[in-house]
């Protein structure tokens, strides 16, 4: 417990105490070094000068802005301008080089991938995920399956103009709502769903007896126009390959029946005009170099 003893001198050191005692230990009252004390006073003065010079105190609506007029937002603008200057040389190279040249130069590839990763995180990650792994309805950009083509030019085209976007040059493809619009009857839809699953050797669920012959017939009449007679798809129309292991909306029977019944029309916005051409180039190279590029 702290006890108080006034005006006491410590016997051993001859120094006066502060009068405080804790469990028998008394605090000596050694004077501070002068330089230390003056440094301490200087920091107090500094604090006052700081309040005057810089934004410091909150007011009812606003704050004291300081006589130097410093603003954090302006400081950011200055730093961003510096950044643009620093990146200038590389950005010019990126602008001048073709997509193939960028991929062939380790230096430009590294720069484009770094810039692309940042731009992807800002603009694409909300749908495609931060690692571009996608989710149901949003394609995984790491794999080797491309509905609209996986070459550098095709990826750039997709980013620039989007899919079913407002852009005049957007990719447009239509998976009709065969069930909802009465194009096919329910038994035909079930039969063609089973047939499509059989194309990629997906297992037949218990208690289901697929009518593959009917399914094949319906497929040839309704689906082959876009997906091809062999079901391998058509990137011109964005018709996916139905024989591989990748399913944008799921490969289970119910999902495929739902797709056939209601159609699918996923949208990707056009980025031309929203992102500058160099950033789109960097994004193209980044996506292409994720591993699935063709």
């Amino acid at each position, binding site marked *: 417990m702290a006890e108080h003893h006034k005006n006491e001198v410590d016997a051993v050191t001859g120094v006066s105490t502060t009068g405080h005692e804790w469990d028998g230990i008394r605090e000596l009252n050694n*004077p501070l070094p002068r330089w230390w004390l*003056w440094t301490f006073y200087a920091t107090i003065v500094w604090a006052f000068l700081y309040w005057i010079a810089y934004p410091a105190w909150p007011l009812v609506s606003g704050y004291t802005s300081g006589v130097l007029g410093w603003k954090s937002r302006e400081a950011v603008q200055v730093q961003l301008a510096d950044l643009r200057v620093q990146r200038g040389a590389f950005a010019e190279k990126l602008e001048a080089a073709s997509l193939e040249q960028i991929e062939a130069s380790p230096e430009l590839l590294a720069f484009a991938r770094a810039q692309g990763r940042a731009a992807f995180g800002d603009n694409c990650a909300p749908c495609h995920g931060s690692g571009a*792994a996608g989710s149901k309805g949003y394609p995984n950009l790491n794999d080797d399956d491309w509905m609209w083509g996986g070459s550098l030019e095709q990826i750039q085209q997709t980013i620039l103009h989007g899919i079913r976007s407002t852009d005049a040059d957007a990719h447009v493809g239509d998976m009709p709502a065969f069930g909802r619009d009465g194009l096919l009857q329910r038994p035909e839809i079930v039969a063609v769903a089973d047939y499509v699953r059989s194309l990629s050797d997906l297992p037949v669920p218990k208690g289901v007896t697929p009518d593959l012959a009917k399914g094949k017939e319906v497929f040839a009449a309704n689906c082959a126009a876009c997906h091809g007679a062999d079901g391998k798809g058509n990137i011109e129309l964005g018709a996916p390959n139905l024989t591989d*292991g990748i399913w944008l909306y799921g490969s289970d029977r119910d999902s495929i029946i739902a797709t056939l019944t209601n159609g699918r029309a996923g949208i990707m916005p056009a980025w031309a005009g929203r992102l500058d051409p160099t950033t789109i180039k960097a994004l193209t190279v980044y996506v292409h170099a994720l591993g699935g590029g063709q």
Partner: protein
Amino acid sequence: MNMATKVERLDEPEYDDDAPLYEARRKIYPIAVHGTFRKIKWTLLIVTLGIYYLLPFLRWDRGPNAPSQAVLVDLANGRFYFFFIEIWPQEIYYVTGLLILAALVLFLMNAVAGRLWCGYLCPQTVWTDLFQAIERMVEGDPRERREKLKTASRGRRAFEAASKHTLWLMVAWWTGGAWVLYFADAPTLVWQLFTGTAPMVAYLWIAILTFTTYVLAGHMREQVCTYMCPWPRIQAALTDEYAFNVTYRYDRGEPRGSFKKTEALRAAGVPAGDCIDCKQCVAACPTGVDIRLGSQLACIQCGLCIDACDTVMNKVGRPTGLIAYDTEMNVERRMKGLAPVTKVLRARTLLYAGLIVIVGGIMVATLAMRGSEGVSVIHDRNPLFVRLSDGSLRNAYTLRIVNKQSLPRRFAIAVDGVPEARLEVVGGISVTENGHPVVEVGPDQTYELRALVSTSAKLPANASLPVTFSVTDVVGGETTTAPDHFKGP
């Protein structure tokens, strides 16, 4: 430790109820002394400052693609050169090792012979010593200085003060100037400094270090040791009764008295101490302490009081060594009539020496065995794996290949540990060696690439196969490996 209780104090402390908030500093003007320890200190001062000022100019041939300065911190390129050793930023643990070694050597010194570092080697001590020597050279010894303050003309005193501060600033400027030479090619930078074309940061650092040297060695001096430095507080916990320290042998010195008085006592057959209370030990002390009060925080154990006392002892015809390197235990033993005991080899010193050998050995071994290439690997966090259209699995990794030689080298990349593994490398690499992708890494450079490993093999659920990436110098055959995992669903 505190002998203040055993020895009668020289002055009774004053107690002032209205003491000021701060304690005004008592400036210390130590007298010049001559003797063994002064000679040792001069020698060490010349050697240490000589190394500091001249080392940047020492050349060391490292071939065409590397700087030829023996000791160089190349911040721009992230390299530290020390003679035949080149340290990369990721090898910063060598610096950690050096710091551990430095601490252990400090502990060992302390356990054997007290504050050898503080007294002889610490930059604060060395520069303060030099600044005090300059002060004595210009203004004279403290007594002469006091006389001048009373008698010399105002102009002369101003001239001397100006000379002193100019000389101090010149030494300080040279100190800062030498510092920046460790961070760039020294002869080039010296030329740039004199032609005014050096980078602004060089002038800035010279200014900063000129200021700190001038303030710390010229004005702060012993306050750095007593107020700012943590070591005096730590070292007291690491010493013991066997450690040699600069010690006033109070068994011999007490009871002290004036020369005449002690001589008279001795003539009368009454025992008297050797200390004639001439206070030369206090006058010589650069931190202003009285060694006769025993071991204390402010005593840096520079040995100058030994020289001062020995000089006096010779004059009064008493044996030297009234103040000497001795152990506290031996002083007490002699007072009890026991023989002194010296024990340098003891648990504490053996432990410190053993640790120094172990840490030093580990550092030398790792330095000797480190290769001239390196590879590190990071597995993609998101996604952990990718299912490809043919149903196979793929994992992506980022590899960083390091070439520590000053020649460009080609490395073949291989992966092991995944059945039916296919390795692809992203980015402008078409060359292969025995089916392995090959990359060229420039001299003293690193190369980052994206490696894709796919397999069609059926993996167990939640598979996590250990994989090894190996990087082989196509010409030299030196191989380095890095481990990671291959993940499945």
